[in-house]
């Protein structure tokens, strides 16, 4: 086992910031290249006109999942050390709804708004300003919302644990789900989005 590199001490706290910076540049670059710096492109997915966001995200998920599974199998990555954020069911449902509304109305999600600001989009600048105001507001209101934010704590939860399936079976199901989703996305675009023939 030699990964995760940071957890196994390959580099320290300071170097981890440099690594984070480099990964951030890569992340921003590919988001921009996928067209995610445009609010129009991002919101088109909600009208089934252009499901590029869905495709890019699901492709990333499947790639990362297959990579982690097989690297874990080969003994390169210790999967038990990979960070899995805690599941807080109720607050995450509420937060997800809020994010969805904000995404549809504002045209960006937090990460893509930063990408769009970097390419000089004025609307994204306002969106980002709103994000910071929202963060400030939740910080001020924290004593009142903290109880809710930490409620329905299910701990470190993963799909194999919830479904009582082997990890590999979940991997296979997610691959099938992604391919089904890509096929469905193409069909939806052709029917509703007025798009011509396009490979899923």
């Amino acid at each position, binding site marked *: 086992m030699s990964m995760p590199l940071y957890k196994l001490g390959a580099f320290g706290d300071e170097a981890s910031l440099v690594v984070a910076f480099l990964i951030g540049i890569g992340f921003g670059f590919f988001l921009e290249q996928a067209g995610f710096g445009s609010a129009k492109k991002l919101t088109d997915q909600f009208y089934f006109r252009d499901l590029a966001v869905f495709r890019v995200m699901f492709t990333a998920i499947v790639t990362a999942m*297959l990579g982690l599974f097989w690297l874990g199998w080969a003994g390169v990555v210790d999967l038990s050390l990979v960070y899995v*954020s805690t599941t807080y069911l109720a607050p995450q449902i509420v937060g997800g709804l809020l994010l969805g509304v904000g995404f549809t109305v504002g045209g960006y999600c937090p990460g893509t708004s930063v990408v769009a600001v970097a390419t000089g989009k004025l609307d994204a600048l306002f969106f980002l300003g709103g994000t910071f105001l929202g963060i400030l507001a939740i910080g001020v209101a924290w004593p009142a919302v903290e109880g809710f934010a930490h409620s329905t704590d299910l701990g470190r939860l993963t799909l194999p644990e919830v479904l009582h399936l082997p*990890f590999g079976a979940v991997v296979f199901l997610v691959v099938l789900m992604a391919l089904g989703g890509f096929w469905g996305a193409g069909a939806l675009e052709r029917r509703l989005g007025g798009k011509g023939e396009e490979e899923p």
Partner: protein
Amino acid sequence: MSRATDWLARRTLNERLALLAVALGLGALAVGDVEARGKVTLDTRELARIVEGEVDHVTPEELADWMIAGRADYRLVDLRAEEDFAAYHLPGAERRAIAGLEQAGLGRDERIILYSAEGIHSAQAWMLLKAHRYPAVYILLGGLAGWQEHVLYPLEPAPDAPIAERAAFARAGEIARHFGGAPRPWSDSGSAPAALAPPRPTSPAVAAPVAPPTGAKPGAKRKKEGC
């Protein structure tokens, strides 16, 4: 060129990638689980951070306050032998053996407070639960001995102690009586708390170092993860 490679050559890049994903997914299905169950790996860096920051401690006074406030958001686990538990245990405590503790019905979503006679067993059990990825495990500082000394039989401050300290002691006395103990007068300061405490061998008192501890910073920064 065979028909299969011929067919593959006619596929688009997307189709080839999809085929690769299906092949890797089918392989994953065949492999099943990546890691053998029961095998654990310690995140030593994270553990060291917790230990240095001393965020995994609950003082006897804190626990007493929680009990009086009627808090029910924790599980109190007594790790001592069956007969010791029968003789005395903290209110609301449940006994568990260290062997098989990770299968003793404790939830990973629960706040678990461990105590033993003095603290060594609870520290060892803490490590065991941490290895099994229980996120919220705490140690009762000083174990049962600490509970007796600070909650059941708190020592009255010296007569020349500051007013504030003496005022705080009035509350400690009330808490002690709440749990069936009693504050010890200052004149008892040389002796061990009575009742439950086993007689202590008399040994020359070791002067505690006065210098403040260096190194571990309280509230040492914790690496944030996730987005």
